[in-house]
């Protein structure tokens, strides 16, 4: 299931960043038009969880596509971040026939993806 959260705009500054939880979880970054350009996770090796990962992305210190094109974000706190990360990538791949452009960059970790055999637009629940 896609993230069921509203998109937010990133704002520079410690006050804004500190309001983002430092929990483990997953996040999406989208461009100005709401198109998802990167799906990421704050895993067990992240120093400051979602807060740290999103701050790195929007500071231009992580994924190049996310940094260049990212304008909005949303996240989900989730201790089962690994399976949820795969879930989101798999959902995106099923809907679009490809990964978000940022996840297709060399060096990006992409787990083995499976198939749902249905697209989000076909969902009846």
């Amino acid at each position, binding site marked *: 299931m896609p993230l069921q959260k509203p998109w937010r705009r990133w704002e520079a500054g410690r006050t804004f960043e500190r309001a983002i939880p430092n929990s483990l979880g997953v996040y999406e970054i989208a461009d100005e038009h709401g198109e998802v350009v990167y799906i990421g996770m704050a895993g067990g090796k992240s120093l400051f969880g979602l807060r740290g990962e999103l701050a790195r992305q929007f500071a231009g210190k992580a994924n190049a596509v996310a940094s260049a094109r990212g304008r909005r974000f949303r996240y989900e706190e989730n201790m089962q971040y690994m399976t949820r990360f795969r879930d989101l990538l798999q959902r995106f791949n099923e809907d679009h026939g490809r990964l978000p452009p940022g996840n297709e960059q060399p060096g990006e970790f992409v787990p083995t993806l*499976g198939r749902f055999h249905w697209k989000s637009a076909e969902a009846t629940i």
Partner: protein
Amino acid sequence: MDLELSDEQRLIVETVRRFVQEQIVPLERELDPDCTELPRDDRQRLIAMTQQMGFFNPDVPVELGGAGLSTTDRTLMAEEMSQHRAGLYTPCYGVFGAGGLAQLYAGTEEQKEKYLYPTLRGEKRGFFGLSEPSGGSDPARAIRTTAVRDGDEWVINGSKLWISGADTSDFGLLFARSDASKGRNGITCFIVDTDTPGFQVRRIVHVLRSTHPPTELSFDNMRVPHKNILGEEGGGFAIANDRLTRNRIPYSAECIGVGVAAQRMAVAWSKERVTFGEPLASRQAIQWMLVDNEIDIATARWLCLAAAGKADGGKPFRTEAAMAKLVGTEGAGRVVDRCIQIHGGLGVSKDLPLERWYRELRIRRIGEGPSEVQRIIMARDLLHSSLH
């Protein structure tokens, strides 16, 4: 009665143990604590190693290119292979081969060509679709997925839940009720291709384990050819039961392996960690925890090997397998729990594998037949024998 390992078994144990310590554990230091797979190059390198060792596909008969190991040898291997962070649900990240769904060995030659052999070559993956939202412990009654004959096809409708790996599978074994009037003899096993119209993975279900998440499936007027019945029409329950019984032994051995690894950590830590001027190992409370761990591990190990021995001897082993499963899964959970307590705060952090083992072991008391079902099996066998 000689309880010592044979020279060959000792070689198996030492070789696999060294492989895990020298090849797998160092890789995991660089991976996420909840990692689920190896980088492709590492995976292929290690598969080449296991093939050269002659241990690739240990469950597979030699004539099909596998190692053809006995259940006992396979149990010994399973205990060694799980002794790393991801080891409980992804032992050695599959570099010893995934084997195949063993039930396919009883398939027709056409079924073997299309499903078994490609699986053994690593070209296809399969799932085992038994449990449903209505139940999994009692499939004979709980299965509500229906299969209705229509000419040379069967039309399947229904759903499955807790099916591991179905979203990444090319096919699966699906158990459906083909004759409602015949109870457990009215369940048929179908081989289903996952690209069949009407097959859907509704969702990934996120549970305590970090890998192999279960899925929820739905089947909407899915047509399966009659030739895709595995075994006999109405013979599905026997296929399912056989698989569950056989799997319990290595399943339990994997739990024991995790317990062994956790205990090794706890012993080392208790000698190193100093509190109130003395190492933890000098405290009776800690010593007794470590002793209880040794008892739980040894008990589970010998029960597993006893069950494996009976299986290899062609004797009935249902009671022994149930006992091994019950004791192995519950005992390993207690072991890891004590090891976490010994490690204190470090024990619940992702810096160590203990928290992952703790979460993932909890599932083992439920999967492949919960503890309560194992007791039912044993009670039934015990009381039946007492009456005669």
